[in-house]
């Protein structure tokens, strides 16, 4: 299984990353190695095993449906580069 330069560019775009030519070269090689590593797992015979749907064996960790108020909007907004009337202000988003 080989990964192409185009695929790396596509994945970078989905992740909102701007990569330089050098970085594209580097990541194409790195991702190739990651895929090869993952492929070893693909080759394990799992026909006798039950399906694993999560890495963690625990299940059913739930919360009760009870309101706990946080009540500190100021601190929640404190890292916002810009805010107005209790909201994050961001560059205009077109509908």
């Amino acid at each position, binding site marked *: 299984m080989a990964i192409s330069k185009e695929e790396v560019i*596509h994945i970078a*775009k*989905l992740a*909102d990353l701007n990569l330089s030519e050098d970085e594209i070269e580097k990541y194409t090689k790195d991702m190739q190695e990651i895929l090869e590593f993952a492929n070893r797992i693909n080759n394990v015979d799992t026909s006798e095993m039950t*399906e694993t*749907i*999560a*890495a*963690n064996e*625990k*299940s*059913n*960790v*739930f*919360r*009760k*449906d*009870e*309101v*706990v*108020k*946080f*009540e500190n*909007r100021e601190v*929640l*907004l404190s890292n916002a580069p*810009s805010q*107005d*009337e*209790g*909201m*994050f*202000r*961001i*560059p*205009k*988003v*077109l*509908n």
Partner: protein
Amino acid sequence: MAREDYEVVIGLEVHCELSTKTKIFCSCSTEFGGEPNTHCCPICMAMPGTLPVLNEKVVEYAVKAGLATNCSIEKNSKNDRKNYFYPDNPKSYQISQYDKPLCYDGYVTIETEEGEKKIRIERIHIEEDAGKLNHDEYGRGSFVDLNRAGVPLIEVVSKPDLRSAKEAESYMRKLKSIFEYIEISDCKMEQGSLRADVNVSVRKKGSKEFGTRTEMKNMNSFRNIVRAIEYETERQIDEIENGNEIMQESLRWDEISGRTFPMRDKEDADDYRYFPEPDLVSIKLSDEYINKIKNELPELPESRRKRYIDDYNLTEKAANFVTSSKYYSNLFEEAVEICKNPKTVGNLIMSDIARILNEREEEPDSLKFTGKELGELVTLIDKGTISSSIAKKVLEELFNEVKMPSKIIEEKGWVQISDENAIKEVVEKVLDANPQSVSDYKAGKDKALGFLVGQAMKETKGKANPQMLNKLFLEELKKGE
């Protein structure tokens, strides 16, 4: 090819906000309409290092929805991440479900002109709602309010079984009604707690292949869903007839111009790179858990409908109408309990109450009076205290202010006049004033009686007992013979 040679194929993805008290992964309130960013905490605001914990009620409500729509329940379920960038999505991923939705393979039944039709449901999964973007007209930017971010949703995905805008509307109304009955959502479309993405394609009748579909996102009224489907169907047929191809794309429905426009969709928008959510553990449901929820489900519209026909002798039409909404149905049952007259209660709901709601552009969930008032109203009609025309006026009053009908008619002086002497007086007065009608009647024009009764009703502002009026008019008119 003629228009009749095409058929439209519609599938709906219905999003429904669950009426839990708290959000899906944190303990913030889900209440609608708070001050911006006051129903928020570090978890739903996606602060680094925070971890989600699933609300147990969300699982319960989704399983309820699945059982009420004939779905199978997935006993080994999990959450997945759906990755996309948008300012209303603070984590840059939405926690949803991908290959193990909680519910799958269900259906609901809708009534069509050709009889009942099953609409299959592919899946129901749980996910979190996004925040809200506000825009201002001065171009100062956009403003992000995350109160809604993390409010629990179920998404109900239908199979492409719908063949007209009308069927799509019936299907959506059916889901709304079921979700109201099982009390998992307030289903307020105007507040966005029930909305749909509508997929539309057209194809030659008889063709097995589907045409290319377009998707209209976030439709939040029945009227717009119907209009948008009708418009989009015509547009697609026109394109094909003109030799053009349909592009698979997302469209925005503009309700003012009544047209659809391509959305400036980000390329690769559908490349969501789902993967299992590593911050949450799997959801394992036992048969006991599922059966317990099944046993606790309230009576569903299908069963009520049957009971109303069998036990109360309602017509099929009335039974369908009354059970179309939990609010009508509960009103009906409460009122019948009091007045023991299902036929009149059913008729008042189907004709007058529905008409007034329609005039006010309101839905049954906004009804403020209860079966207590409606039951007394019907009792007052049955006892002859008020006429049915006064009853309609009392209903109008009930929409303005909830009071007992007996109190309303007392205050308004609307008690029916059943005193024979008083009515006789009116009859005589009307006869004196309308000699032409009297001779018309005597000449064999029976219609003239109706006119005279009408005049007497006008004279008494609708308060005269109609049977008594009729009787006295006939007596008086016969006297002269």
